[in-house]
């Protein structure tokens, strides 16, 4: 989703922001995994 309309300075800023947000997003998804993995061990659905 690169913003192709932006100038090159804008682009550099976007890249820096992207990296920062990547860290945030990774943290968020990691948290999601961590929270979900535990309780979901006992899914009430007998898949077997």
């Amino acid at each position, binding site marked *: 989703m690169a913003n192709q309309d932006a100038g090159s300075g804008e682009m550099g800023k976007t890249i820096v922001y992207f990296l920062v947000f990547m860290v945030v997003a990774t943290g968020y998804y990691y948290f999601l995994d961590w929270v979900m993995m535990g309780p979901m061990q*006992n899914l*009430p659905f*007998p898949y*077997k």
Partner: protein
Amino acid sequence: MNKVKATKGTILKVAMWYILILSVFAGIANWLPQIRGDAPEAAVAVDLSSITPEKLAAMGKMIVFGTENPSFGGGGVPIGKGQCPLCHMFFQEQKADRCPVLIGEEGRSNNRFKEERYKAFASRLANGEPNSGVKPHAAAGGQYLIESEYCPNCYVVEGFGIKGTNDQESPMPIINKPPILLTDTEIVAVVSFLQTKDDGDFTKWTARDSWEKYWGKPLKADAAPKEGEAKAVAAGPPIALDTDTPEQIVQKMTCFACHKIPGISIAKTGMIGPLLIEKTNAPNRIKSPEYQKAVKEGKAHASTPREYVIESIMHPDAFIVPGFADDMIKDFSHKFTVAGLDKLVDHLLQQDAAAAVKEGLDRLPNEKEGPLKKADLSSPEGKPVKNAATPKTDEKQASISGQGVGGKF
């Protein structure tokens, strides 16, 4: 604005597109493996007087797999009316792990009801299991198997309960209720199959007996099939029928060729097998060290005279009376009907030393016990064993079990 092109034939194009998509979908559906699920046959009335244990077990196999020769190629499993193979594993070739494996189940069943865990279930459900109303009270392997079908919650194998119930509730449906809805006889047939499928050894077959003991009533033939429900399957032509007299059975089975049997007019000359006075013999034989050795080796299983006699007919090499060779014909399991066998066993269990003496029959020289005339007829061994010989009536349940008999000695 663009020019709008001529739009003739749009409907045709769209229709073609639809037909193309739909044929692709139908084509893929036809390309997948095709399995047709046939409706199970409605309950078949089984006449116990015209079916052999072997046939009963084969019927059980039919109920389980829906075919007499189940093949498991490619991971497919044939599923019969009982739907058991959906969860249970019956043979090594079949894959199923949802419920306990039933290979060698007969052997395990003999220990289950002795477990502490079973007792815990029994005491917990002393007022009856809520869904089936059954109170767990199995006292033998066969009874445990019967109980498991009528009341799956009465004992749940560890690790196979419904998740979260701490193995206190079984995912198995109650078999005599919908959706599976097997009749009593069909359940007996399935248990017969379970008890004999591993090695074809019919000495271990107690299904019918266990049923009657467990429920304390005789197993009645199912009601005739309701009209329009299903066709009755004609049982094969067994040889020893319920309607035969013991004399006829002995004649058909040619027992007289080897054995002398009191009360049977034609069986007076056999010189190959032991004299069949089982009211006297059977209790002694069971107690004999040779027999106990066979029990330890896992060859023989009888604990009551009745079981002993049945075992001797159905599985002659389980125990060879000392002094004799293993010569007896071994295909009686498909020559007797269940009721015919009962009749002969009843007769044999009524014969004691006194009856033999009366008819002038004596033991063969190679019988360890020695000639009858010298035997002390008043010794405990010679005493008539009351229970073993009781005629077959509705009240004789305890006798068939042989538990009472054991207490006498």
